């Protein structure tokens, strides 16, 4: 037994030294090789007297395990140290720039259209579209603006033919006509899109965006119109309270008609929507004129409802603090980058419209 203990003590103290892998392997052979000190002890188990044999074997196994564990951990430590040493040499300056990436952006007008669609989606509107080139009938006549009506002067129209029969739509309202001609009531649609007027200065662009709204059913009245727009404006500007004013106005295709102002104030050069006592006109609306309904074969004694038209670019300017309308269409890369939105920023009801 003392022999076994000696071996153990001797090797444990040996293994306390700094050893190379080779030296450890040597020790391993010395102990557990074919004729190693421990291996040879196993061979003599049979020759141990019966009474002592059990204890001898047990002691032997204990020493064997102890030394083996020690050897393995010693080996592992050396390997680990080696790797660590290697990694130390591989160290890079991680403050060096990452591999290059480019960010794409979605135009603020597109983002705003998605926001608008998301809001109206909640209250049951679906999206309709119409062509940019319109005939004079859909753009004016069907909308109760016959030829020689002075209201036509309010729209500076781009024409595609000398007879003024084909034009670039001056508003999104012809989509009302197309939608109602195509289907049967009830109608509950919005129609965002490009619109055109031959007007160009700091606050007017020859092309801009509008969203048309139309809700026709059996009992839709001006209260619903007010409620719908109140809801929309509150949701869009993401404010708790909104000051809104309906003002009588005139559009040939609605009767009664209204213009809608929202309250605002300027604080630190920033426009704040919903507060203050200044008024800002943001949209026109009204009850769809019975003549318009007759023009699209909807019986105005059975059906009635409202329509509205909102300038999308203007909404985007107000919400996102953009001062210059012309810049929307100037395609300045720096501007697009600054005012554009991340493609993953899809406006939605549960995540909110904006971050």
């Amino acid at each position, binding site marked *: 037994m003392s022999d076994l203990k000696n071996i153990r003590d001797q090797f444990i103290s040996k293994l306390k030294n700094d050893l190379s892998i080779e030296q450890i392997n040597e020790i391993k052979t010395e102990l557990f090789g074919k004729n190693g000190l421990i291996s040879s002890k196993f061979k003599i188990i049979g020759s141990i007297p019966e009474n002592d044999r059990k204890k001898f074997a047990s002691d032997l196994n204990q020493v064997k395990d102890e030394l083996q564990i020690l050897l393995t951990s010693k080996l592992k430590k050396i390997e680990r140290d080696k790797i660590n040493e290697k990694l130390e040499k591989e160290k890079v300056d991680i403050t*060096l*720039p990452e*591999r290059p*990436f*480019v960010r*794409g952006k*979605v135009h603020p007008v*597109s983002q705003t259209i998605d926001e608008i669609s998301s809001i*109206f989606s*909640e*209250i*049951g509107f*679906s*999206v309709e*579209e119409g062509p*940019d*080139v319109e*005939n004079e009938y859909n753009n004016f006549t069907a909308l109760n603006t016959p030829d*020689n*009506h002075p*209201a036509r*002067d*309010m729209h500076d129209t*781009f024409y*595609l033919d000398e007879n003024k029969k084909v034009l*670039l739509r001056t508003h999104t309202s012809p989509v009302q006509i197309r939608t109602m001609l195509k289907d049967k009531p009830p109608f509950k649609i919005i129609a965002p899109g*490009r619109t055109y007027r*031959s007007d*160009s200065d700091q606050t007017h662009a*020859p*092309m801009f965006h509008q969203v048309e709204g139309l809700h026709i059913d059996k009992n839709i*009245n*001006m*209260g*619903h119109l*007010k*409620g*719908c727009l*109140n809801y929309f404006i509150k949701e869009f500007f993401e404010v708790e309270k909104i000051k809104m*004013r*309906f*003002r*009588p*106005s*005139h559009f*040939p295709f609605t*009767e*009664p008609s209204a213009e809608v102002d929202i309250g605002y104030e300027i604080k630190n050069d920033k426009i704040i929507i919903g507060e203050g006592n200044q008024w800002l006109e943001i949209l026109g609306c009204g*009850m769809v*004129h019975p003549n318009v309904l007759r023009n699209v074969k909807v019986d105005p004694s059975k059906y*009635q409802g409202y329509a509205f038209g909102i300038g999308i670019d203007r909404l985007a300017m107000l919400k996102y603090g953009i001062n210059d309308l012309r810049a929307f*269409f100037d*395609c*300045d*890369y*720096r501007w*697009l*980058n600054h005012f*554009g939105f991340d*493609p993953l920023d899809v406006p939605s009801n549960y995540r909110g419209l904006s971050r």
Partner: protein
Amino acid sequence: MKITYDWLKDHLKINAKEDKLLEKLTDIGLEVESIENLSEGLDLFKIAKIVKTEKHPNADRLKVCDVDVGNKKIIRVVCGAVNAREGLYTVYAPPGAIIPKNKTKLVVAKIRDVTSYGMLCSEFELNLSDESDGIIELSSSKYAKSIGKSYFSKSRSNIIDLSITPNRPDCLGVRGIARDLSAAGFGNLKPEKDKKIKSNKKQNLKVKITKEKDQGCLSFGSCLITKVKNTESPQWLKDKLISIGQKPISAIVDVTNYVMIDINRPLHAYDADKIEKGIIVRNSKSGEEFTALDNKNYKLDDGMCVISDNKGVLGLGGIIGGTRSGTELDTKNVLLESAYFDPRSIRKTAKKLNIDTDAKFRFERGIDQLSIEDGLNKAAYLIKEICGGEISKIDIQKNGSYKKKVIKFDPKTFEKITGFKISIKEMIIILDKLGFKLKKEKEFFKLSIPSWRPDIIQEIDVVEELVRISGYEKIKIENPIKERSKNTLNPTQKLFHFLQRAVASKGYKEAITWSFTDAKYNDHFKENNKEIKIVNPISSELGVLRNSIFSNLVMYLSKNLDRGIKDLSIFEIGPIFYGSQPGDQNTVICGLSAGKKSRLSWIEKERNVDVFDIKRDVIQTLVEAGYDAEKFYLDDVSPNYYHPGKSGRIFLNKEKDKVAVYFGEIHPNILKTLDIKSESLVGFEIFLDNLKLPKKPLKDLKTKYSVSEFQKSERDFAFIVDKKISVQDLVSIISNIEKNLISNVKVFDVYEGDNIPENQKSIAINVTIQSLEKTLTDNDLEKINNLIIETVENKTGAKIRS
């Protein structure tokens, strides 16, 4: 429409403050556009007397005047007016005063070395008249005791500028506005107190309206005032016109203008002595000419409504008079015209001749047909009062008569449309005050529409009146119900939005550019499409509808390059046009990428963007949108604005589809012609209308999920093939050999040059072989291996490289 509160008070009994008025106007739909304070600073203009004049030492035409400005102060003013003389009473403006005409602020100034403290004013400078020759001359008897006092007697009220909507011609007169206000409970409308003309004298100038087709004049009233002495208007009349920013001219003209603004009744005054044998109202004949009061000569077409005499055209009825018969200061006999012209006829003529006058503006919106006599009464008496003379009887010629409009109104309609209630009593009060004559018939009203309201035709117009006057703030908010019965977007719209964001996510910035473009740019990208011209473009650079989005994108890209931005990717999603009829348009996503990848990177090698960058962006976008890349088919056919060797098109499906995409390098010649300085420029066009929507929605395709749990093997092959064989064909041949076993085919090298025969190339391909059913044996693999080589060699003439 410009008014003042004071003028309104001629018609309205009211004491409220002006800000209440402004609020009320806007509340009833007469939107206040702006307020102009004309009297501000006007008290600075003083009555003064020139006590001494001397010639300016350094200028022949200037005088140095000593001016008594009151309070025993004598001030030195340099003046250039010929009529500046000792003893003259005139108007003096001190330094600090703002000249009404040009809005400049006076300062103490040295004029040719003589210091001048202020200025002596002409009527022109004070906006009083067009008289700019010389300074104002005030009568010494009247002003001798007023030196130093303000010239403008009382402070004038603000000019209120209203934006009157085209349906409200009645509110182009002050009385109409007053009537609306009174209906809304803002003051009481004063009764009209104009006298009716009582005369025994006949109007002996014959007036005739010819009976012909499209006669634009329905009624022509006139009255002759003889032996007048035309003169300057009295102060009250001048003040009235000046108060709304108009210039007094002469009593006769001022009276007609005053009546027009007061009750929206346009009149015209002729010098009766210049009319040859009576008036004929008729349609013009092509080629007729006349000189109008704007001093322009107009050549007329057939069928324009003219007022004429024996000698020819005197004026365009309801639009503009002519110089030949105009009144002047020496006019002795005046013929006053008060007529009614058809709005459509007025509008047609004015548009054709491009004339815009106050009268035209009013007639095309519709004048009160029954105001002919009122206008003549009012104006004739005023002229008589100011200019003396004798008034004749009124003569009215008619071509058809006015028909009173009556409509049946169901009071229940009001609540049906507005969602709130007002009492019958309230309705009656409002309608009565607006001038409706009302008769109750059971539950209905029978309403006679006032003659000044051409806009009221049907029930809904009455509802509008009632809700407008009772106040829009009474409309109750009905909160919307959060309920949806139909999808918000249809599949095409969903695809649009998905692709828009998919392309943006590849590093492209979305631009929005005009739908029109410069023909010069468009030419490069229109291919065989016809040019679609805009008849009245903003400028020639925006003269055509775009046949391709490239024209705008390339132009704006170039501008960004000029800004020093070298590496950029932009795209636009929007319409392109192939015809000028509604619907002749396609929706396209067009992208451009310029410059280098990894410019100035410490870690990656910089290189030009190339056609395979853009191909990746396009393919990835389509795959993300749900299209199966394995079915895509490419060839090298592309429009002529692409590099012929580095461009192509993509079909979603070989057999049947339309072109889904063009992509490639932009033709170097275009870069050269348009002077675009970029190292490289690649672009693509995705045609949304050509992307067939998947037959099944993506959600239904999710159910098909199968993966193989068996071992897969990879084999590499290198084939030497003819250069003409496309990689696409080779891959397709291999993929189709054993669809169940060949799960992936990858090209990992293409080589031409040394060791490869001319006109041939080496393509190295890695094939993944895996079965869904079992682990493949060496034997199986060997078989498929041989089959691949054999098939490729047979079908393409390729040789396997050993």
